[in-house]
């Protein structure tokens, strides 16, 4: 959180005059942060439980295309297309989860395989059907849907994506900090054996979390499809790492057992400010990834130091 404030001050000083602090500048980085943050909230819970999901970016592209295909090409009502997209997402997550807990193969590999399988399948099917990688017209086709209105435009001066981001982050934080399930998530990630010996069903906890992550991908896919009136299979890939980066900057331990969706919210905000703020400065934008890598390393080093201090044996 302190890092997020520091980055804000840096860009406010460096790029404040060129639009970073303007209404448009603010809305732009908040929207970027929101799209990452919506995914990063459930990803945080999954990381706390000690697992990865590298397929979440590919899932965004896949479920977006499924939704647009049904609503635009098949003339389904928007809610029905949205519902099927949710089911496809849940099936993707359930598959990830069941493979991980039954085979014992690390989730890093299982979800990497899922990432390529989703990208390949959605690309091949979409291209064979439309000769393109995208389907256009979903905003027009859903113009009269009241459900679609939740994913379009502004409310209270902020993009809808920001409200989804805040709502999902708050819900994820409540689940993790204030429910029995949340305690099990922490325990499973902190020491799986200890959790199982205490009667926690570690497999069910993990499968539930694997299922929740792609469900959030439906929200991100719908928000971005309705914003530009187009679903594209290539939208999404890359976000799998951005979500992990947001969670880790926010204090989530990549080996599991610690983390919080509120920390991740600030991590996503920092990511949004860095990725947009950079282009408002006079620095050559080709340096962006170098800057991002440095910020990531510094943030993680600070988090690690703080955690080390907290875990020190009380010798008093």
């Amino acid at each position, binding site marked *: 959180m302190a890092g997020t404030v520091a980055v804000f001050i840096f860009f406010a000083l460096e790029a404040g005059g060129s639009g970073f602090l303007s209404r448009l500048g603010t809305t732009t980085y908040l929207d970027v942060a929101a799209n990452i943050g919506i995914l990063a909230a459930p990803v945080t819970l999954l990381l706390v439980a000690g697992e990865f999901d590298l397929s979440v970016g590919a899932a965004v592209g896949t479920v977006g295309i499924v939704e647009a295909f049904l609503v635009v090409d098949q003339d389904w009502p928007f809610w029905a297309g949205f519902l099927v997209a949710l089911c496809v997402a849940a099936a993707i997550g359930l598959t990830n989860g069941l493979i991980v807990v039954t085979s014992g193969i690390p989730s890093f590999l299982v979800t990497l395989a899922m990432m390529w399988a989703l990208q390949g399948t959605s690309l091949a099917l979409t291209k064979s059907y439309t000769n393109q990688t995208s389907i256009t017209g979903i905003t027009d086709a859903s113009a009269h849907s009241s459900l679609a209105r939740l994913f379009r435009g502004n409310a209270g001066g902020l993009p809808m994506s920001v409200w989804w981001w805040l709502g999902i982050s708050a819900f994820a934080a409540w689940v993790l900090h204030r429910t029995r399930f949340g*305690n099990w998530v922490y325990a499973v990630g902190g*020491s799986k054996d200890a959790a199982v010996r205490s009667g926690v069903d570690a497999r069910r906890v993990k499968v539930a979390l694997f299922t929740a992550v792609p469900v959030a991908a439906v929200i991100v896919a719908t928000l971005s499809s309705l914003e530009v009136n187009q679903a594209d299979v290539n939208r999404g890939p890359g976000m799998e790492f951005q979500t992990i980066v947001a969670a880790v900057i926010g204090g989530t331990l990549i080996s599991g057992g610690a983390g919080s969706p509120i920390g991740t919210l600030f991590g996503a905000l920092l990511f949004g400010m860095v990725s947009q703020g950079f282009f408002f400065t006079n620095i050559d934008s080709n340096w962006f990834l170098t800057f991002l890598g440095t910020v990531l390393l510094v943030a993680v080093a600070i988090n690690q130091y703080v955690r080390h201090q907290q875990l020190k044996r009380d010798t008093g």
Partner: protein
Amino acid sequence: MSTSEPVLLRAEGIVKSFGPVNALQEVSISVRPGEVACLLGDNGAGKSTLIKILSGAIQPDGGSLLVEDTPVAFTHPRHAIAAGIATVYQDLALVPILPIYRNFVLGAEPVKGYGPLRWLDVARAKLITEHELKAIGVDLVDASRPLATLSGGQRQCVAIARAVHIGAKVLILDEPTSALGVRQSEIVLRYIGETTRRSVGVILVTHNPVHAYRVGDTFTILEHGKVKTVWTREEVDVDELVRAMANRDPNPAVDG
């Protein structure tokens, strides 16, 4: 440990083989309320196999298990926990990185709320933890601190107190002192004695005869999967126990 009390847990004639290896041959042990039954033996004597059978992790090939004189067959650790038999393992059934209170209530978290909407009662979880730990002499600065900030002995006590709090009638303690220094071991042994005052039966598994004699009421020595000797406290002194563990024949005529 009056003999009129019912036997909480009795294992009788337990047999277990792994392929050609006879891990346990006709092994019996029992524990009454408020009693500490020590299970002694060197590495490979069959202690671990017997604990796993008592805690439902593996099934015996022969023999019987009785909980309060009712025959039981555990096919999963959950069944043993449900029957009131809790096992506290050597490497601790706790999560170092989690706050102390979240460890203490793990698996039996207090909740509040209405109908299907229930959430963690954090205030009560902290209160329970502080109260229960204070009762055993662990004074907490803050129950929200990570478990890792406690000493090894304190952590072992937290694990035992937790099992008792969740409702264990029989505690199986697997080498609770083996990784601890003298002072830390003392804390744990004192607390084991404390536990029996709540009518809990304890099966203490150890290879340290001195620690066993500090708290034990009965002593079962395993060797190569067989019961070598069974003593009650009246029948043995600490030197004899040490000698028996050192694998020399006890000689009552000399040691009197």
